[in-house]
């Protein structure tokens, strides 16, 4: 990055002298060129990270990232900002742990504060079988070198005084599994940080440019049709979770994915009351407090196929009732805003990061509920797969072919029912 563009205490002081009216734009808005070495479809965190790592790690800078709306306007700006790597199965554990390690250094790497806050992610246990499952998962995490601690009820009551840990609670809390390095990050900042850093390396970020077709030449990618004209390229990477099925269908590929709406909501902002991410699988609920003071919470899918970025009030009601069962004192708060995003729900609950059965076509998607925390590793491994033409060891298991081979990665054991993961 050119020193004049770098954010620092000195640039802050320099720009203060001009009343902050002369900050340069964070990235260019170039017109699309007729040909690129690689085209990434989707200008959210995953697509921008792919563009960044193609340039940074592999020296491929003649790259365009195409976005139909504005950067980070899809699921990147709609998630609940939780990052963690508390997975049981080896491929997931190693992949998400790589991502968590990248999160730890991301602000420095991108010269942009992504506000990664390792405040701990706590999964509550409400029954002896919940405890067995948490112990098993915690042990698996530790064997994979990932931090995990089991907290008993008294310790949870001490750390999270708002949580109803009494015996009389509607869903009594018996313990919980904590990943101390888990936490939250600023979702918009991740998109902006990767965008700015990718642009500085020469990657073209092209907004208001929707891909309407993928042109093939004898089973090989030749280019993409867009609302801003045809762009020739031999490599197309899809980073369009929520719409992966639609983009893959443009190249004649069917995916083991259904699109479902997932909702979230925030309360009005209050002073700090919760310094940990608290989740409960039993009541389908999770909550954290943002730096603005809003309590950010979410729950289940809407449980029917949807491309609409909204859902039913009954789901919001379920989230609110679960919240009040765990945190009775939050009953005085108001719901300030609710929204929805469209998730790629795969048939085993795990992502697809790799080559599709069309030469030159790759994807990173199928994130189910959990794409945000994967952003750095997803971009890194997608870029690796595009540049080398073969997957890295850390995404070798996340192929499309695993379904046909019976090598599904089913963390929950829910089987081929995408909305059950």
């Amino acid at each position: 990055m050119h020193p004049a563009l770098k954010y620092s205490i000195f640039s802050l002081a320099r720009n203060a002298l001009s009343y902050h009216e002369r900050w340069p734009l964070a990235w260019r808005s170039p017109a699309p060129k007729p040909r690129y070495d690689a085209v990434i479809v989707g200008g959210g965190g995953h697509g921008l990270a792919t563009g960044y790592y193609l340039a940074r790690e592999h020296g491929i800078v003649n790259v365009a990232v195409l976005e139909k709306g504005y950067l980070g306007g899809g699921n990147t700006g709609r998630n609940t900002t939780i990052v963690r790597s508390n997975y049981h199965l080896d491929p997931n554990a190693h992949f998400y742990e790589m991502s968590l390690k990248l999160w730890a250094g991301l602000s420095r790497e991108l010269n942009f504060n992504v506000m990664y806050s390792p405040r701990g992610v706590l999964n509550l246990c409400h029954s002896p079988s919940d405890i067995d499952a948490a112990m098993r998962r915690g042990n698996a995490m530790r064997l994979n070198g990932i931090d995990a601690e089991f907290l008993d009820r008294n310790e949870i009551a001490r750390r999270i005084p708002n949580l109803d840990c009494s015996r009389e609670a509607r869903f009594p809390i018996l313990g919980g599994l904590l990943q101390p390095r888990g936490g939250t990050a600023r979702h918009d900042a991740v998109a902006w940080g990767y965008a700015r850093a990718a642009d500085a390396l020469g990657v073209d970020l092209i907004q208001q440019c929707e891909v309407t077709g993928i042109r093939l030449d004898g089973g090989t990618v030749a280019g993409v049709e867009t609302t801003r004209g045809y762009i020739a390229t031999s490599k197309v990477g899809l980073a369009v979770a929520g719409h992966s099925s639609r983009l893959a269908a443009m190249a004649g590929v069917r995916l083991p994915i259904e699109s479902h709406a997932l909702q979230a909501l925030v309360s009005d902002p209050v002073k700090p009351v919760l310094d940990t991410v608290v989740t409960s699988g039993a009541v389908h609920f999770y909550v954290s407090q943002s730096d603005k003071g809003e309590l950010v919470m979410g729950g289940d899918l809407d449980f029917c196929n949807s491309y609409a970025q909204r859902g039913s009030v009954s789901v919001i009601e379920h989230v609110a009732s679960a919240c009040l069962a765990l945190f009775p004192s939050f009953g005085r708060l108001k719901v300030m805003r609710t929204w929805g995003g469209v998730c790629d729900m795969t048939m085993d609950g795990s992502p697809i990061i790799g080559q599709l059965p069309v030469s030159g076509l790759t994807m990173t998607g199928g994130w189910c509920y959990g794409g945000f925390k994967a952003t750095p590793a997803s971009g890194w491994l997608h870029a690796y797969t595009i540049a080398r033409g073969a997957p890295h060891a850390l995404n070798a298991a996340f192929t499309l072919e695993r379904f046909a081979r019976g090598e599904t990665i089913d963390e929950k054991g829910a089987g081929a029912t995408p909305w059950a993961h």
Partner: protein
Amino acid sequence: MLLIPCPWCGPRAQVEFTYGGDARVRRPAPDAPEAAWIEFVYLRDNPAGPHDELWQHSGGCRQWFRLRRDTRTHEILGSAQPGESLPGDTR
């Protein structure tokens, strides 16, 4: 919340129903090639637009039926008892 027209009970709130997935999926013959089974178990069209899907009126008459719904707008385009057809059915 969706107002779902149960073919037996009439319009009822979505919370009375359980979703059953894509209604166009067809179980292959027992001796069908493996590729047909992989397609049946895992692959879906996942359309953005009209979608034929199975629902059960689990909090009511407990019957299964077919619903046609636009996945972009959630607009309900029709419902049918098993064996009945909906306008535009191709099978």
